[in-house]
């Protein structure tokens, strides 16, 4: 298998993962052979358009959706082979934060109970200990525990709800968190607060993150390395700075051009991004990006491009890379 990460032994190693959904008599090819590794203490950003399989990949890593094939090694152990008690134990070490903070909180439960819930599921029987943990994580995310524990989710703004979700994900002292578009539903001003908070929490609790988003600038702000995904496959992966300075895959280049620049002198490039992604029910043969790619040729429809190293630590799956 290709070694995509790093010098250190990775905490997470995803090997040729395939995840599919049945849809009537058809198959949705949501994740089609993805391999990646995340080193301990690292943040790997995962970007791609809606429907490309980012959440599916994140959920399959956490075994919330079982893969059709492939392996997910966490700290050396294969999660895909685990069941029952062993898997439950493992799940304490990995957590998930969702995109829609308000929808992911039960509207009828008080904040104190919501944040304590993972502790109860994990069998922490001592109520005083639970309370202590809940207060600790709520303070850590910048909320006043005494003011919030008794209140209901609807009394909080989107940004505050995301703080509560982050507190809930921290309460079991996990090592690894999948952040699934944690700021996409938030305003620019609140987005910056939450991104800073995630960075602080990562440093303070020694976390390793898989950070999913569709906005490249947001991903770059927090990620050591970035993986770009398109229609179920990885296009490119590499160190953030390098990947943004020298994108090798045409799709990465296109994503970079689509970002609105807050400068009126930079004229937005007209229609860089022709078309929409094809259906994952019948993905194109060969390179899945070929229907939108300005460089596509005969070979691209015949042959699936494999990820190969095109610079130190930078890998791209393209027959005709940009660099």
């Amino acid at each position, binding site marked *: 298998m290709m070694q995509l990460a790093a010098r250190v032994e990775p905490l997470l190693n995803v090997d040729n993962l395939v995840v599919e959904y049945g849809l009537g008599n058809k198959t949705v090819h949501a994740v089609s052979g993805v391999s990646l590794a995340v080193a301990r203490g690292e943040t790997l950003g995962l970007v791609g358009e*809606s429907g490309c399989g980012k959440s599916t990949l994140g959920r399959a890593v956490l075994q919330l959706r079982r893969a059709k094939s492939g392996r997910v090694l966490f700290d050396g152990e294969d999660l895909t082979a685990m069941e029952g008690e062993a898997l439950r134990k493992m799940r304490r070490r990995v957590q998930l934060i969702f995109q829609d903070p308000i929808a992911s909180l039960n509207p009828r439960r008080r904040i104190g109970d919501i944040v304590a819930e993972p502790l109860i599921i994990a069998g922490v029987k001592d109520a005083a200990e639970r309370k202590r943990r809940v207060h600790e994580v709520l303070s850590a995310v910048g909320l006043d525990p005494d003011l919030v524990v008794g209140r209901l989710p609807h009394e909080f703004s989107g940004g505050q709800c995301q703080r509560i979700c982050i507190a809930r994900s921290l309460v079991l002292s996990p090592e690894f968190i999948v952040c699934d578009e944690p700021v996409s539903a938030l305003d*620019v001003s609140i987005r910056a607060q939450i991104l800073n908070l995630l960075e602080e929490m990562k440093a303070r609790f020694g976390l390793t993150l898989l950070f999913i988003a569709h906005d490249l600038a947001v991903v770059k702000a927090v990620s050591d390395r970035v993986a770009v995904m398109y229609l179920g496959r990885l296009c490119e992966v590499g160190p953030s700075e390098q990947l943004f300075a020298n994108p090798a895959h045409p799709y990465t280049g296109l994503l970079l051009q689509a970002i609105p*620049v807050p400068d009126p002198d930079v004229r937005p490039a007209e229609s860089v991004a022709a078309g929409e992604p094809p259906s994952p029910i019948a993905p194109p043969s060969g390179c899945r990006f070929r229907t939108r790619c300005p460089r596509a040729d005969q070979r691209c429809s015949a042959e699936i491009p494999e990820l190969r190293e095109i610079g130190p630590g930078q890998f791209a799956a393209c027959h005709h890379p940009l660099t």
Partner: protein
Amino acid sequence: MSAPLLTIEDVAVELPTPRGNLRAVDHVDLSLEAGRTLGIVGESGCGKTMLSRAVLQLLPKKAKLTGRVMFDGQDLVRLPSESLRRLRGRDLAVVFQDPMTSLNPVLTIGTQLMETIQEHLELDAPAARKRSIELLAAVGIPAPEQRLAQYPHQCSGGMRQRIAIAIALSCEPKLLIADEPTTALDVTIQAQILDLLAREQRRRHMAMIIITHDLGVVAGRADEVAVMYAGRVVERAPTQALFKRMHMPYSEALLAAIPKLETAPHTPLPAISGRPPDPTRPLKGCSFAPRCRYAASRCHEAKPDLKSAEMPDHLYACFYPIQMAEGIGA
């Protein structure tokens, strides 16, 4: 200079709530000429949607509106509802953040387009059908004839927004209001939709209001930008002038909070701390004072007016505007 197509004069919107009166829009003045684009920028809850709904006369029933909305020579606030209904959808069109707000899930796309066209224009069914196909093609929908028979749920989010735009454009409006038209969409699709709006606007010489919380969205696309905070316009200027020199600390903070591609990973973002004030509890002083790093005691005592200093078309509401030297010699 030609007479403005739209003039919003001293518009205020109040909504009764259990916590007391909520001032969603607090005495706003704006104007827009034909063929021009105005960007309205501000964070969630600052009153952008309520202001656009005041223009469209689509406010919640309990809402209390004061001021004047002059559109094409008539005051919309005083127009009978029958005339308003005819105006909306024809001269005055809107695209919402969630395209499903304007699309009917149980009707085919063709039916919805043709109904709008036939309601406002004197066209028979075959002519309306032909026009529908042209419109879908114009907004970049492949195989438009087949699309006519489909339902909204059979289309992607980007497609639905294109269809909502096609319906909004169907009767050649003089003014199009796009309320966060791309907030729910991916970056690549967002760029496509913004291009589409700009292209159609130029082609039709239509006036357009783009509402967004992202200054990046309006930077290259609006002629003029109004920044809103807590129901008020706090800075307003031609786009170039605004980005060259922001006077109001809130505008500057909003721009700084956007993650930039040039910045190295793990650089802390200059976030705006705290939240906007509770709109049912208006502050005596500047609404931004609790979050403003330049605030002085005067800012907590009185509200700064929206006014200009050296440039007549650059307005701002701040006692201590930011003085950026950069060649202007402030």
